[in-house]
């Protein structure tokens, strides 16, 4: 198979959400010694970008979006060890710590954003749901993340997003992290009100926002 065909197949595998094919193509690329940076940038990334377009124009719904994101993660997992060895530090995005705030057990939306961020090239540390605010900071400090994403589904637990910003300030760490907030009751106005760095209304928009801030 000529290289352009392989790259096209990689993209197709992502668009189709074909995890098995995406992974197999990645493994084959490693074995045959292809330039893995080229594989990512001209094979897989165009695929996930196409998925984003299909979502935005209303052709794709959450099942397609997330299945494609999972396929992307699977392919990246196969490429990463070799990619890190040959192109150290070329991970496109950056490190992101994400979780649903304390007192809130809803994690569907947060999982969507985590998946899409990962598929979008970020290294994602997902702390799960009902996460103590201090824990976000500990993890971010530990892994050297640049961005912290807080999800909340309830208007009651949303208050934790405001408290988190205050907590960062108290610790003198506000300038160190970009803080993004999301979840049903959150809004752009809310993000501005509490001094967060951004808000996105869905997972695709969240990736766009994260890239613009990273």
């Amino acid at each position: 198979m000529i290289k352009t065909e392989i790259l096209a197949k990689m993209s197709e595998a992502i668009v189709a959400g074909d995890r098995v094919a995406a992974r197999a193509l990645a493994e084959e690329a490693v074995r045959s010694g292809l330039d893995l940076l080229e594989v990512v940038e001209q094979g897989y990334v165009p695929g996930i970008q196409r998925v984003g377009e299909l979502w935005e124009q209303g052709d794709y719904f959450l099942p397609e979006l997330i299945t494609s994101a999972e396929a992307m993660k699977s392919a990246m997992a196969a490429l990463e060890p070799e990619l890190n060895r040959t192109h150290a530090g070329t991970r496109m995005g950056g490190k992101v710590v994400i979780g649903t705030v304390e007192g809130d057990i809803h994690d569907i939306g947060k999982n969507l954003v985590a998946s899409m961020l990962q598929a979008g090239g970020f290294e994602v540390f997902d702390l799960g749901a009902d996460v103590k605010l201090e824990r976000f900071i500990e993890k971010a400090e530990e892994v050297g993340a640049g961005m912290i994403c807080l999800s909340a589904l309830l208007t009651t637990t949303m208050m934790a997003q405001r408290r988190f910003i205050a907590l960062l300030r108290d610790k003198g760490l506000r300038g160190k992290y970009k803080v993004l907030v999301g979840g049903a009751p959150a809004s752009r106005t809310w993000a501005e009100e509490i001094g967060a760095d951004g808000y996105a209304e869905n997972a695709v928009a969240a990736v766009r926002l994260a890239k613009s801030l990273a």
Partner: protein
Amino acid sequence: MIETKRPKLELLSNALVEQIVDEGLTLLERHGVLVENKEALGLLGGAGAGVDAGTGLVRIGRKLVEDCLATTPAVITLYDRDGTRAFAVGGDEVHFDPGSAAVTLLDHATQSERKASSADVIEFYKLVETLEHLHFQSTGLIAADVPSAVADGFRLFLGLCLSEKPFVTGTFRVEGFGPMKDLLAAVRGGEKELRAKPLAIFDACPSPPLKWSNLTTQSLIDAARAGIPSELISMGMTGATAPTTIAAALVQHVAESLSGVVICQIAGRGAPVIFGGSPSSFDMRKGTTPMGAIETMMIDAAYAQLGKFLKMPTHAYMALSDAKVNDPQAGFETALGAALGALAGVNVISGPGMLDFESSQSLEKLVIDDGICAMVYRLLEGIAQRDDPIALGVFEGFRPGMSFLTHPHTRQWYRKEHIPAGLVDRDPYEAWVTAGRTSIVDKAHADVSRRLAAYAAPPLDPAVRKDLDRIMAAYGRASGIDLALPVLQPA
């Protein structure tokens, strides 16, 4: 006279009902449920379920489920605060209560959601007290000015002070159950009396798929022992936390609910349990849980049929909307749900007043929805044979051009056959224009004010009231909160 047919909706064939229940039982046997409560694990193990103490996974054989179903009452009778008016929850009886629990109130003046205060909650209870088609109250609005440590008990406390109606409520914390039970028992004059005449239903929600959290399991156990009815609120979302096909989601609903039945029955044989739920279709674009989606209503009507097949009282979250204001969507989603739920014979329908995916309440919507419920009750009464012969007597002495307006038959029957318009607009166009083109929302707002002004607190024995104050203050102290006396005075 020919017996009046009760109009009835059944979405599932008998064969499908049987297979769904059978697969639900198999699911419990084969995969089991996760139970995050030590006491329940002990009880379940003792009753013969296969308990993995390490993971909390419980496999329940169908024999145990069937034994538990056999001791579950088919009908529960709730009584009002006074203990005189009885409400049968079972058969095809239908009772509406406000959707619960909203964290915001739609403010009519700003047409925006805002946090509710205790004063709003008091108005909410007073208004519902005046709405005759809402047979039950619910602790449907959460006050932001009440410390969360006592919020569950405080909302019930306020309600019991202000309203005669039975309540649909629930705990927020394991510690909340005791004081809430004490409040109810204080009204009845003892725990034995409360058991004999239940005053409130406690909601308990499994976490889909197939899990019971510590809090909700404890609520089931505590309620079963006190003889307080538990309402099982299974709430899978199709394609997210439950399978995407409606029939498969129903299998999960059955499995989750039956595991709840088992927990209740082994905690207290004969415990009153309601086969309820708040499942929903899942919006694959927005990731939201539309309660007004037709598929959500289909799931509700279908599991009610399953609950009846299992000879249990039923409940659903219907007659509510995902709209953010009282717009046409709010009306049609609510009305469709109310009608379908009632036709399906859902015994407790929680929804009126509710907007925005179960997160907001509106006083104006409560009034509008009470009118919807009135229409639905009329529908349920069906078409009766009033006379024999049906019409030939009315036509005696028939002459061309005769009018029925002055016929004695009209005076005899029209008030029984036809309900008043309520708030809906039936003006001729010119009259509507002259009257200021008023919308139903404006009329509802005026009606809210009128009803609140006319509200008179139903008399409560001062000794009982003192007990309620004492119990609430003690719950506050136990939670490290000084509930100042003025707070305890719902004027």
